[in-house]
């Protein structure tokens, strides 16, 4: 395929991004089919899932804690990461234009995609232009978000995931449940079964020894790497002032995809930017320690445009908005765009650890996903399943402490809960209860009366001294926990009796 960067760049500049809008989600990768409590109901009952997740998150938490504690200036690094991302978001449009001009100047072609459908169309057309009917893929959340694999399949192009965990997910016709370890919900025995069932030419004597499993995947993938004409990747960091793209990984499979094919197509969420090359110093320390619990990730690939005679000779960068401009427009909410997808918040989240990623419906699970997914899609009324995501947290705050760029996730969850309430098109039972409580809580006389009404609870408790059963929605409490009988005397009654007044 011949490339005319100048002409393509000129064309891309004539595309208007238009008013910020919510994400298009052609393959429902940002929105599940049921609410979080309904999905969690099933996940919580899956004892194998619970064991797998408990083991995996506990292991990775301990690794992360170990390598973070050995960095004396970890808090300063976090603050630096936060500051760089805040600066990036404050001038994102100009930095993106700078990135475009640098990539173009170095022989790459930049495409701007308003939403998932446009991004998929651009990539499908580019692959078609090469005549290839198969592509190899580096693990990428952006192309998961757009459902690129489905779009390629619809165009008769096979997309092969080459990240080991992503390959496991793909072979088992599953969905990823974690940013970093998309098959975290599977154990070794399950992976062996998947390989035996789905991998052509696999050795039937395959065991569940990790090395044997990795070698089976290696044999399967090696032929594909050598034959592939097109590689597709995401981005960890894009450097505006040099036009450099960076992908970090552990296996080297990504580097195969980035170096062997003739054409490389990279899809990048517009927030994956850092202003300068020097900024990578901060993030290449923060990311591996936060994600895999390693001091340094084994493979850090960086490339700048096209290098004649070395690596892909055609490079396309697709800049994906898909709701991000809308998030950027929210002064507080834009913090969610600082996320570097390390998954530390997933690993420390007590909710994620118990339900796993699939319960969130979106390919962005966990605390940051519970914020980002409804931010990207918008919340479409009280029955939108994404309205339930911000409530999938006890607001325990472990996510903030783990976040390498100090995203105040608990506050963002509260803000998205407010967005969910604002999206109520008609008053819900919860709305009525909250309004009534608010009236009582701003009128001391009514509050006192409400407290006395609680005395009814003493009748419910009877002689047992505890309440064991209440009607819905309080049954959510009493299904698993007792409530004590309300006291014979409230605090304010005690105060009046012992200290006088009121």
């Amino acid at each position, binding site marked *: 395929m011949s490339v005319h960067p100048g002409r393509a760049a000129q064309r891309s500049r004539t595309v208007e991004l238009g008013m910020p809008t919510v994400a298009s989600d052609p393959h429902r990768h940002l929105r599940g089919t049921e609410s979080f409590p309904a999905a969690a109901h099933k996940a919580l009952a899956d004892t194998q899932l619970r064991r797998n997740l408990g083991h995996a998150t506990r292991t990775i938490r301990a690794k992360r804690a170990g390598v973070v504690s050995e960095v004396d200036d970890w808090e300063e690094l976090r603050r630096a990461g936060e500051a760089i991302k805040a600066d990036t978001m404050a001038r994102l449009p100009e930095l993106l234009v700078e990135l475009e001009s640098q990539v173009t100047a170095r022989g790459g072609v930049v495409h701007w995609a308003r939403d998932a459908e446009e991004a998929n169309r651009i990539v499908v057309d580019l692959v078609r232009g090469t005549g290839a009917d198969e592509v190899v893929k580096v693990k990428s959340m952006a192309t998961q978000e757009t459902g690129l694999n489905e779009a390629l399949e619809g165009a008769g192009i096979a997309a092969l995931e080459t990240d080991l965990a992503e390959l496991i997910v793909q072979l088992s016709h599953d969905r990823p449940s974690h940013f970093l370890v998309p098959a975290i919900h599977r154990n070794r025995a399950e992976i062996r079964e998947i390989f035996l069932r789905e991998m052509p030419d696999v050795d039937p004597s395959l065991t569940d020894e990790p090395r044997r499993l990795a070698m089976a995947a290696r044999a399967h993938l090696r032929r594909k790497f050598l034959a592939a004409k097109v590689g597709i990747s995401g981005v960890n960091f894009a450097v505006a002032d040099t036009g450099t793209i960076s992908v970090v990984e552990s296996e080297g499979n990504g580097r195969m995809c980035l170096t062997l094919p003739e054409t490389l197509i990279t899809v990048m969420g517009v927030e994956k930017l850092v202003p300068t090359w020097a900024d990578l110093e901060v993030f290449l320390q923060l990311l591996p320690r936060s994600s895999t619990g390693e001091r340094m990730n084994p493979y850090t690939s960086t490339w700048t445009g096209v290098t004649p005679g070395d690596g892909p000779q055609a490079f396309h960068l697709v800049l994906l908005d898909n709701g991000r401009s809308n998030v950027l427009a929210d002064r507080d909410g834009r913090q969610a765009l600082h996320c570097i997808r390390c998954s530390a918040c997933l690993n420390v989240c007590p909710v994620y650890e118990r339900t796993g990623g699939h319960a969130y419906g979106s390919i962005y699970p966990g605390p940051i996903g519970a914020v980002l997914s409804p931010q990207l899609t918008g919340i479409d009324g009280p029955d939108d399943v994404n309205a339930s995501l911000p409530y999938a947290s006890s607001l325990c705050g472990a996510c903030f402490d783990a976040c390498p760029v100090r995203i105040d996730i608990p506050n963002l969850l509260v803000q998205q809960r407010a967005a969910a309430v604002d999206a109520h098109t008609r008053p819900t039972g919860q*709305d009525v209860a909250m309004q009534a409580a608010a009236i009582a809580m701003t009128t001391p006389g009514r509050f006192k009366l409400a*407290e006395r009404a609680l005395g009814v609870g*003493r009748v419910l408790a009877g002689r047992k001294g505890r309440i*064991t059963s209440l009607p819905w929605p309080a049954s959510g409490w009493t299904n698993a926990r*007792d409530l*004590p009988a309300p006291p014979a005397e409230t605090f304010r009654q005690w105060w009046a009796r012992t200290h006088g007044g009121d």
Partner: protein
Amino acid sequence: MRIAVVATCLGDALFPRAPIATVELLERLGHEVVFPADQTCCGQMHVNTGYLDAALPIVRHHVEVFGRALDRGADAVVAPSGSCVGCVRHQHAMVARRAGDEGLARAAEHGAERTYELSELLVDVLGVTDVGAYYPHRVTYHPTCHSLRMLRVGDTPLQLLRAVRGLELVELPDADVCCGFGGTFAVKNAETSTAMLADKMASVLSSKAEVCTAGDSSCLMHIGGGLSRLRSGVRTVHLAEILASTDRGNASADLVFDTAEVGP
């Protein structure tokens, strides 16, 4: 010192022993305690369920009631709750600013500067760790999430417990993991909350403690509600009640989940 007490809505209505113990303890230490009787709630339930507009008048009410108490000579405001103080300190101004009320936001910040969780007040402000308490029981301490991660109380509650005579403090495994309460989360996501509670109860039981204590009645209601349902033989007691107990007995009996029979 003159100290205004926030009974907290839950403490006032359902778990009065925690604010009563707070009053008794502070008075025993020689301080004057005042109870601004117009107080209701800090608004945390509304804020954390996403009702930020409805929370605004509740926040305003709290800020006004305790602003008046401070104006009338109170030196500090104390609540026997990490999460209520967390709401006052980290959310009141946010709610006000979101509604465009900068005056209220400033007043909220002013009040928050002098509002303390009980262990903070005792150790960081009053400088006491030995409050003269006697509590002859085997106790484990659950650091509630908002004490730990919103207020950063650190080990101040443990310093206080270690100084209690007769008390055997045992370590709680995975102490810093949330118990699963989370306010309306406990009802809206009851099953996930219960799964978290199951692990917390397992930790409490494995510690062989006879009492699980914490600085928040809400989390104790959750942990204690589960332990009571299982008839586990372990009870939950607010930190204030332990600190208020002396060798002359507890002015307030210490059971959150009373095993004594009560009638209507």
